[in-house]
């Protein structure tokens, strides 16, 4: 039996219930057993007492989009190294994408991920299984058996399923097993060989552009198919102002559709590509500042549900290439929360909304017990110093890959401690100067 944990003198924030109180939180046997305003009432013996000193206690983050290299590309990232990065970023659960070698399209492989995670990872690993066998976009995967094995959703990860007939079948079949579908949106024809946002910036750099219609066309298609089939549908990530409008419109008639946004698209824009900086080559691409502001507004208005890191470790070899030839993707587990807090400090979005998009909303979409501070919920917690200033330094990165879009970024707000099921998985240590 694990030792009980008592966090006192804390600002307890639970986005699920909109609660923001000063008080104490008690966790026993891996679950939250008591939340009280003011001083803690009675406490059991053999309890670890932590004085939060007024810092925030919030649910640990749930990151809905994380790529690792396990199995198949362990040099990029393992479940263990990703979980280490996650713990330091306050992420207590992450959904790992099925784009591995082999692809997670079989119940035995879901089982493998869960066993490897249990043996090696510090945080909860939630396997997403492939929507189509081999991510080939041709045949639907065994949703029933994959669900039984422990998959939390079906997605083709980086790939965007494009066949309308197949999408309809997959949506219908997922609805049959009451499982969410997560689809990345990129129309193959419209995206073509584009490598960044279409517009003046791309033209000036001589790079082929990706129009936002490469996202809005499949988004509209998916949302219509979602209404037809009754599936719980989550647009993995939207990047443009037009997509925010489309989501807002469909949400009025279909409560079963949700969407996410990458912290990169919320924080950065196409100008960050600068002089062919490949760490900023992402999918979807960073778009205009107007698009970014629309995404921030969409987060505030509720048109956007989830913020994820899109953590995608890529090694130096595939990033140290001419821009058009380099791989997409950036890591993000360690900087997700700090980057999101920028939106709070800039007063663009309130703290509860930002936290909700990384805790209770993902939990609701995936049907998880975590992501909230409530009696009986798992004691997946973070202790957050909202004002702590720090700088992202490559030598401090815990991920096996260092392709971050936030190199040398200055942040306010740092996770001081992370707990998974009441167990300490991370304690911040001041870096040596």
């Amino acid at each position, binding site marked *: 039996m694990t030792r009980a944990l008592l966090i006192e003198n804390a600002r307890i924030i639970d986005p699920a219930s909109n609660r923001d109180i000063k008080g104490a939180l008690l966790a026993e046997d891996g679950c939250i057993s008591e939340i009280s305003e003011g001083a803690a009432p009675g406490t059991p013996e053999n309890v670890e007492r932590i004085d939060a000193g007024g810092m925030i206690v919030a649910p640990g983050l749930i990151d809905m989009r994380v790529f690792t290299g396990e199995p198949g590309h362990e040099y990029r990232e393992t479940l263990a190294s990703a979980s280490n990065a996650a713990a330091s970023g306050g992420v207590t659960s992450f959904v790992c994408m099925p784009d591995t070698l082999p692809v997670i399209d079989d119940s035995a492989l879901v089982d493998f991920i869960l066993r490897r995670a249990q043996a090696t990872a510090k945080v909860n690993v939630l396997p997403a299984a492939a929507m189509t066998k081999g991510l080939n976009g041709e*045949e639907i995967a065994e949703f029933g058996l994959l669900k039984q094995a422990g998959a939390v959703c079906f997605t083709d990860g980086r790939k965007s399923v494009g066949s309308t007939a197949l999408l309809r079948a997959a949506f219908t079949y997922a609805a049959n097993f009451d499982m969410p579908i997560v689809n990345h949106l990129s129309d193959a024809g419209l995206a073509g060989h584009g490598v960044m946002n279409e517009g003046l910036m791309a033209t000036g750099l001589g790079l082929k552009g990706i129009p936002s219609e490469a996202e809005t066309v499949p988004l509209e298609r998916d949302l219509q198919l979602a209404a037809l089939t009754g599936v719980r549908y989550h647009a993995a990530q939207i990047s443009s102002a037009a997509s925010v409008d489309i989501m807002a419109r469909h949400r009025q008639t279909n409560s079963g559709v949700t969407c996410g946004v990458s912290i990169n698209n919320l924080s950065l824009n196409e100008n960050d590509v600068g002089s062919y900086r490949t760490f900023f080559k992402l999918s979807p691409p960073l778009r205009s500042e107007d698009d970014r502001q629309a995404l921030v507004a969409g987060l505030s208005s509720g048109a956007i549900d989830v913020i994820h890191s899109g953590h995608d470790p890529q090694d130096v070899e595939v990033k140290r290439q001419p821009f058009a030839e380099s791989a997409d993707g950036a890591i993000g587990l360690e900087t997700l929360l700090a980057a999101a807090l920028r939106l709070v400090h800039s007063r663009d979005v309130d703290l509860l909304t930002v936290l909700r998009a990384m805790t209770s909303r993902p939990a609701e979409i995936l049907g998880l017990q975590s992501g909230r501070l409530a009696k009986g919920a798992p004691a997946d917690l973070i202790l957050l110093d909202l004002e702590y200033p720090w700088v992202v330094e490559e030598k401090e990165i815990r991920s096996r890959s260092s392709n971050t879009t936030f190199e040398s970024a200055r942040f306010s707000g740092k996770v001081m401690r992370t707990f998974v099921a009441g167990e300490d998985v991370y304690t911040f240590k001041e870096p040596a100067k």
Partner: protein
Amino acid sequence: MARTKPQKSLNTSAGTASNTPPFQHRHLLGIAQLNQVEIVDLLDRADAMVPISRQPRKVHPTLTGKTQINLFFENSTRTQASFEIAGKRLGALVVNMSVKTSSVSKGETLIDTAATLNAMQPDVIVVRHSAAGAVELLSQKVGCSVVNAGDGAHEHPTQALLDALTIRRHKQRISGLTVAICGDIANSRVARSNLMLLNAMNVRTRVIAPRTLLPMGIENIAAEVFTDMREGLKGADVVMMLRLQHERATGHMIPSTREYYQFYGLDAEKLALAKPDAIVMHPGPMNRGVEIDPAIADGPQSVINEQVEMGVAVRMAVLDTLLGEGTQVTE
């Protein structure tokens, strides 16, 4: 081209045929054209035909001198054999024609073939075709009776009748029973004909299938729709399994036969949820280990072989009703 149909009545020892009006239809194109009285009449006549096939000399020559053409545009072994045996036991001259469909000119071929056959003065043409509505189209072009032996995913009326007869002989009634039809409802003519017949007989109809194999609007045809087989089987008197056309469905409608078997295959554990005396049916041919556990198919609750026997009786009754001239069935 139209020919008047002779008035006739088959007086059967078992049935109520003598009290019902003569069969009003020249063709049997689907269950949709029949009302409850006509269905019961056909079942009674079929019931009376059963003993003939159990006699040492299986002859009941009411159709001597009649010509029956079995025109099968789609491969079939059991249905064609069943119609052939039915016709021959009634003394008709039976000719089998298997026509491979040319996908390019189906319509033209169909009507040309109909005209050609019609010139040979048959009395009945039994037709199977892969296209829904093809049998009705053909019936408009010939001067004889036409029996639908299956048209696309539309109707297979003799299958529904033989299923009903099998149920009635086991349960002594049809009305009021709970019948669960499980499998590829979307692509099944057997399911459509059965649902129409069972609804006409006031059966509590259920369909069970993954959503990908349920056609739009099914909730208006079946009384209850289930995607969870265990729920759908609870309290059922009859469990009717359908063949999964897995060559066609895999990858698009269902991911694999192993997953299908896990969730929608009939095994002992799932069957235990139905009534203890529930009967298990299958129109054949079966995919053992895909939609049904071989132990169930061959088990004590299975009436699958009896369905085949009733098929001959139903087809004899249908042919006799359409063509016969009112001879007494003797036992």
